[in-house]
């Protein structure tokens, strides 16, 4: 990553690299901070560390500096001390970079950011490491998070095709502890663009950042975009003049693409299919749901190849992870299931949901996503979540949670929801409908695990 930053810093040192409501850090500032970090870590002899709760102006130079020094960084999600303690134990971290006082006493050596970022830029830069490891935790939407081992050189190689984007201002809607956040980061710096990083990263703050900080491009999960559209409807304020709207991270309902095209009329809408484990398979810009069947069976030479096995998408990736933490390296030429259930319809590969989201209703497997798509199109529905609800009669039933549009007649809406699903197979019809104020999300994704 340092090479991407230095390329722009040498060309245009004052160009903003990272912007928040509070600060603006230029490419030169970030490069200088990165070398301070590299020198500090080298001096301290640190080889692995965890980091908690830092905002982008700090975490970006930390990641860049650590990669130069060959130090494996893992950014933890924001969490309470008990959870941080569990993560430290799970991932064998004994160095924790944080400015939080409540994380002392967890058994890890605490390093304050001031210990790395203060002082002069080193005159003698430490040698650049050949191996640049990085560990990304999965969001844990289907269980405990796993550590996914990456290499910065390999990750940055995936951004080598990015064309110049001076003047573009990309919203950071993901956390930098997420793989999708790192992808945005690398794309921005490869393009020589500016990262706009509001804190916190919730959709309301994202929308405010789009309006106040001149965001031109934004990449987020479908769930995040649904919330943004709901916020726009609720506050009635101006629609940000985005040039690019990108979706990824979870299955993308077809109707949402139409809503986004209508809402952000001047923006190109694209989809990215990527995951922590296998990296990115590229973007789809034709505005249609799903992927083109051209992504399947591209041949041995393709760095990333996909195929459908028993209704599930499998991947072979030479640009993805090296392996999971604590496990042997994966075979880059081996095929692995993605957990994404798909159906080939005509010339498209359409996503039906995650294998872990399938609801078993009396022995009938129900995919929540098609039901959710149908419900989301009902007027009066701002957001919807379909999930399994345990039931003594059938094992589980399809349950629906809906965030209604403010002022909606809930009795009439309930009838409309039933009518919208009336022609679905009996097992797929929602048998439990609840109106809620908001939906639980994790890492910007709707949690569809079976719940009580």
């Amino acid at each position, binding site marked *: 990553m340092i090479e991407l930053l230095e390329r722009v810093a040498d060309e245009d040192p004052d160009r903003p690299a990272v912007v928040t409501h509070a600060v603006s850090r230029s490419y030169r500032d970030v490069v200088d901070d990165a070398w301070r970090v590299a020198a500090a870590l080298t001096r301290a002899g640190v080889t692995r560390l965890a980091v908690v709760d830092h905002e982008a102006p700090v975490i970006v130079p930390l990641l860049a500096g650590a990669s130069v020094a060959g130090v494996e960084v893992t950014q933890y999600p924001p969490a309470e001390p008990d959870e941080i303690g569990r993560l430290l134990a799970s991932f064998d971290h004994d160095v924790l970079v944080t400015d939080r006082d409540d994380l002392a006493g967890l058994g890890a050596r605490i390093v304050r950011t001031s210990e790395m970022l203060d002082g002069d830029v080193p005159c003698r830069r430490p040698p650049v490491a050949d191996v640049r490891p990085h560990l990304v935790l999965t969001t844990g939407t289907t269980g405990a998070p796993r550590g996914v081992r990456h290499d910065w050189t390999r990750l940055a190689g995936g951004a080598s095709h990015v064309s110049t984007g001076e003047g573009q201002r990309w919203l950071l809607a993901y956390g930098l502890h997420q793989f999708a956040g790192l992808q945005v980061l690398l794309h921005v710096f490869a393009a020589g663009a500016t990262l706009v990083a509001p804190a916190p990263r919730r959709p309301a703050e994202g929308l405010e950042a789009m309006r106040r900080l001149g965001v031109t491009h934004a990449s987020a999960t479908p769930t995040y975009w649904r919330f943004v559209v709901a916020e726009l409807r609720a506050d009635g304020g101006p629609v940000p003049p985005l040039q690019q709207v990108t979706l990824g991270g979870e299955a993308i309902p077809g109707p949402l693409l139409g809503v986004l095209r209508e809402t952000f009329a001047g923006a190109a809408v694209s989809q990215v299919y990527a995951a922590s484990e296998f990296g990115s398979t590229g973007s789809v810009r034709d505005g249609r749901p799903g992927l083109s069947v051209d992504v399947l069976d591209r041949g041995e030479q393709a760095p990333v190849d996909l195929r459908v096995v028993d209704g599930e998408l499998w991947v072979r990736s030479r640009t993805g992870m090296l392996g999971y933490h604590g496990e042997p390296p994966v075979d880059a030429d081996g095929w692995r299931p993605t957990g994404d259930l798909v159906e080939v319809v005509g010339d498209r590969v359409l996503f039906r949901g995650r294998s872990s989201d399938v609801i078993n*209703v009396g022995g009938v497997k129900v995919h929540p996503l098609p039901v959710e798509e149908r419900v989301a199109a009902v007027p009066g529905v701002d957001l919807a979540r379909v999930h399994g*609800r345990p039931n*003594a009669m059938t094992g589980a*039933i399809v349950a629906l949670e809906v965030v209604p549009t403010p002022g909606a007649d809930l009795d009439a809406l309930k009838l409309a929801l039933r009518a919208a699903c009336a022609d679905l197979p*009996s097992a797929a019809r929602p*048998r*439990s409908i*609840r109106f809620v104020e908001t939906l639980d999300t994790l890492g910007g994704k709707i949690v569809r695990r079976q719940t009580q």
Partner: protein
Amino acid sequence: MSTAPEDVQRTVVDFLTLTAKLPEGFSADTPLYAGGAGLDSLETAELSATLEDVHGSDPYSTGEMPQTLGEIQAFYAASGA
């Protein structure tokens, strides 16, 4: 909502009306399944979820299989809920 017999009756009648399964002359002794309201297994599952949502518990989740509204009312009376 309380588990008084009249409240439980309202929940069941509302549910049968919503699902277009309310037979003429429905009473506490009308069978809920074949020969009466005609609920199938998924509709019964939905009734159980509805009872749980409205009254906090339901007889089906405790392993019972009430045949009539009267037996559902008896479940709540016996549980003292």
